[in-house]
């Protein structure tokens, strides 16, 4: 199976760390939500109850509002808040990353590993970050 560095051309051994083995049991959306036992997606997987199954950034914001997140301006580290970022490509959400208290980010990459990465731009094969959300930590 493909390696992360073969897919994400900006990744190298100095700017990211593997933090889990590969698994198809959860994806980046679940991982951003703090879960590692199921795959989150509005179609064909788990999605929070009573929400429209919208495959859109706005639909993802609605899902994370159920967890206490609200939209915020930036991914800058803010004391007292934990943040997540939503990536979009060709008009569809593709990926989410979660910020650590160090200011670095963590991502689960599809069926591949979880990684800790220095910046959001390192995963730009997923497109661009178009929305940030935060909640009190």
């Amino acid at each position, binding site marked *: 199976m493909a390696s992360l560095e073969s897919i994400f051309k900006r990744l190298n051994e100095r700017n990211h760390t593997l933090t889990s083995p590969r698994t198809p049991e959860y994806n980046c959306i679940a991982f951003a939500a703090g879960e590692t036992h*199921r795959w989150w997606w509005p179609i064909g997987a788990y999605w929070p109850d009573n929400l429209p199954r919208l*495959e859109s950034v706005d639909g993802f914001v609605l899902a994370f509002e159920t967890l206490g997140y609200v939209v915020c301006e930036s991914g800058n580290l803010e004391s007292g808040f934990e943040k997540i970022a939503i990536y979009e490509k060709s008009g569809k*959400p593709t990926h989410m990353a979660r910020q650590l208290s160090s200011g670095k980010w963590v991502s689960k990459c599809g069926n*591949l590993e979880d990684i800790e990465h220095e910046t959001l731009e390192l995963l730009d094969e997923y497109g661009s970050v178009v929305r940030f959300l935060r909640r009190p930590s």
Partner: protein
Amino acid sequence: MPTLALELPAVDVEAKFHRLADAWREETAHLSSMTEIILNPNYQRIIGMGPQVLPILLRELRDNPDHWFWALEAITGTNPTNPEDAGNLQKMRQSWLNFARKAGYVV
């Protein structure tokens, strides 16, 4: 009138499945979008193989758990998983393997 030969010999079905499954895993490994994962052309070709691929697909689910549920439902026309288990690969896998054993598949 000549007819199209849609049934492949078993050995060819097995080889074709594994070729398509390997390509599917390679092309979708980094994706989170279940929509993109199941609409991948290799995955769709596996669905297109129809009932002849079911025993192989079920063995693959048993031995190398992965997101084969959409293909299984498309081929069989049924879904034996519990709605509350949506997205839970291990629980969905167990429901499908239980269903398969009751239906007479050796898995």
